[in-house]
């Protein structure tokens, strides 16, 4: 119906090689992009800065982690620390008077450097052992940040982000900050969409499947494992600085604890490892399901005069949220992106039952 795929075949290589060979996909993406671009003028401030902005930022971070975990199969439990390094690095630079454009890149480079140092552990170990090594990174970075008052910002341990501007536009209010986050998310998404079509992306996939087999095929595991950590940490660092500048606006060590790492990990697992669309869905679920369930329950209680004790009211959404996550993973372990793909595949050949491959 929508896709009009049945019977249509590409006649040129260029058509087949496009990022989105199907017209409907292209249209859908342009529509979503247009809505996102117009969002500050279409929606209330609550939805822009309370939903869309964190969604874009956390999605960008999840995409960065997904490159490492989904594409190259290296487990990382310290991604929150990676973001923290980027955030602290760039905020300190901005406070020293460095323009934000440079500070963001520098924050990314700092994260990439430190992230790769810890990523070096991946050359020797895999799986849960690597998970432990990266967990150690999380704790080491936490410790260093909260114990050097030079980094964390004095006895109150809060670092204010001074007024900044990006490409000459002052980042004040929700509109410019939103566009900065959108821009960064767009660039990262574009990079992720393309990375799987490059030799780099294919080398990462080979690493993920079997690293010694990849080595035999002539892929330098040493080089590509470190590169995977480098790229993913760079993205994490840049997103960390975006998070600090556009969303938090005052950073303190507890914002980059293990909870953040686990949250982002959950986003890519629920969304779908190794997909680009997955983090968008996963982030939306992990960030907003508790909020929406909470509001729904509050609304129901308010409208129907349900008098629930506040403790129960606070815990019920958590239970529902847990059940929701378990349910998704039970019915579709490949994540929300796979559910979407199933739906899309169904529509691709509709009204027929099976696709002609």
């Amino acid at each position: 119906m929508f896709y009009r795929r049945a019977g249509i075949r590409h006649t040129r290589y260029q058509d087949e090689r496009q990022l989105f060979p199907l017209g409907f996909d292209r249209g859908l993406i342009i529509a979503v992009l247009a809505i996102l671009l117009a969002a500050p003028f279409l929606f209330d401030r609550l939805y822009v800065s309370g939903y869309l902005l964190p969604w874009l930022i956390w999605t960008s971070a999840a995409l960065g982690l997904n490159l490492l975990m989904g594409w190259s199969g290296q487990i990382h439990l310290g991604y929150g620390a990676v973001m923290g390094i980027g955030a602290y690095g760039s905020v300190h630079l901005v406070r020293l008077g460095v323009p934000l454009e440079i500070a963001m890149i520098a924050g990314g480079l700092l994260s990439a450097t430190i992230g790769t140092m810890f990523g070096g552990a991946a050359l020797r170990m895999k799986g849960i052992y690597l998970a432990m090594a990266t967990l150690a990174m999380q704790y080491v970075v936490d410790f260093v940040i909260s114990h050097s008052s030079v980094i964390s910002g004095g006895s109150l341990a809060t670092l204010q982000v001074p007024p900044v501007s990006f490409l000459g536009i002052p980042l004040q209010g929700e509109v410019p900050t939103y566009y900065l986050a959108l821009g960064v998310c767009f660039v990262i998404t574009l990079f992720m969409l393309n990375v799987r079509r490059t030799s780099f992306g294919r080398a990462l996939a080979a690493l993920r499947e079997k690293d010694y087999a990849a080595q035999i095929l002539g892929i330098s595991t040493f080089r590509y494992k470190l590169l995977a950590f480098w790229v993913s940490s760079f993205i994490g660092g840049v997103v960390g600085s975006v998070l600090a500048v556009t969303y938090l606006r005052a950073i303190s060590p507890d914002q980059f604890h293990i909870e953040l790492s686990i949250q982002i990990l959950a986003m890519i697992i629920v969304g779908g490892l190794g997909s680009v669309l997955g983090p968008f869905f996963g982030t939306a679920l992990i960030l907003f399901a508790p909020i929406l369930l909470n509001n729904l329950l509050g609304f129901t209680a308010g409208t129907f005069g349900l008098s629930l004790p506040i403790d129960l009211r606070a815990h019920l959404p958590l239970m529902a949220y847990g059940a929701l996550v378990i349910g998704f993973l039970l019915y579709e372990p490949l994540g929300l992106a796979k559910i979407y793909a199933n739906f899309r595949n169904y529509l691709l050949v509709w009204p027929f039952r099976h696709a002609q491959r």
Partner: protein
Amino acid sequence: MSLDRRSFIAGSAALAAPLALPVQVFAQEKIVRFTLPQDFTRIYTFVTSEYNQGQRDYFTLVNDRGGVGGYKIVADITDHANDLPRAIEAYERGKREGAVLIDPLSTPVARALVPRALEDKINMITAYSGRSDAADGSAFPYVLPLSINYWTQAGLIIEQFKKTEKGSLKGKKIVFVHIDTPFGKEPLPILNVLAKKEGYELTAFPYTPPGNDQSAIWPQVRRARPDFVIFWGAGVGQTVALTEAIRNGLPMDRVSGSVWLSESDMDVVGREAAKGVMKVEPCVGGREPKVIKDILADVIGKGKGAGPENKVGTAYYNYGVQMATLMVEGVRKAAEKAPNGPVTGPWLNEGLRSITNFTADGLLPPTTITKDDHQGGGMGRIARWDGARFVPITDWYSANQDVVWEEIRKNSEEFKKSGK
């Protein structure tokens, strides 16, 4: 999973429904809306639920008596679980619904909300939490601790120790056991300055968060043979610290915590064993104050209580009532100044910052909030646990405020420099 279209559409409709829910907008005029997103589920749990129960009971009391200055108080309560995206969403939602005051009761959340509150001119209450330097109202016009900050609490404790030692702490040993987070380290600058001034020797023993194992620290504390011990934490770390202090045989009457110690903590530690331990009281505990009696008679008695009756009068419950009385007094003052509103952040701010000598019928020490001093004068008292309740051993007093304010000014200057 095979997915048919019907279940997909049904599922997505179910997911989208909460988004589409209309945000309640009260059209009536005479309402002052507060938003209280607090952490009921992750870290502070029972602390929050008792605190919040106190707040709601007091609001019910005020509203049932016809409100204040012609206004009724509406309080929206949600759970932010100390998670920043959730807290910021709650803040934005509150703002959209017309809330003029927010009380997040969480240090990380308060710190992330400071720039927003200042920009949006929404009054943020940071009772015993948030930034200690927010006591400087000239730098933080819309951040209102309305209570003694951690620095003042440390100053009060040292003053009490000094009194115990008949006026001099020279050559004494004070041990500071704290959770190893920014919050735990917060009193250190004050304790260090006072160490120089008073001549005592300060040793700090940090324990790793969340603090459910401190068995390595306390034998060292015992070996240091301290004259006094201060322990600093909140939630689970407090009960563990106290248990370990008892197990290591430290004299309880020379051990003191901050404001974060309550009857509920004592139930965990053992009521008898903890006899003698001290804490800082920002307001009167127990059921004797007139406000609490009124709540018992007019709210609990009529079955309108917000939670279990046995929690009424506990330390955290009374802290909640304390904050609620201050908020309501702010509304009253604001309504005196501009009876017809409009109810906005600045309107309430004017009221909150002109609270003078307010005691809530004897619940609080005389509190005066001015445009410069958001701490309210810095008065508190020390109470001692007698096995059943906290008995005050001092009158309301304030101490070492010169040192505290020096630190406040130092940090708020720094904030002014980088924040604007």
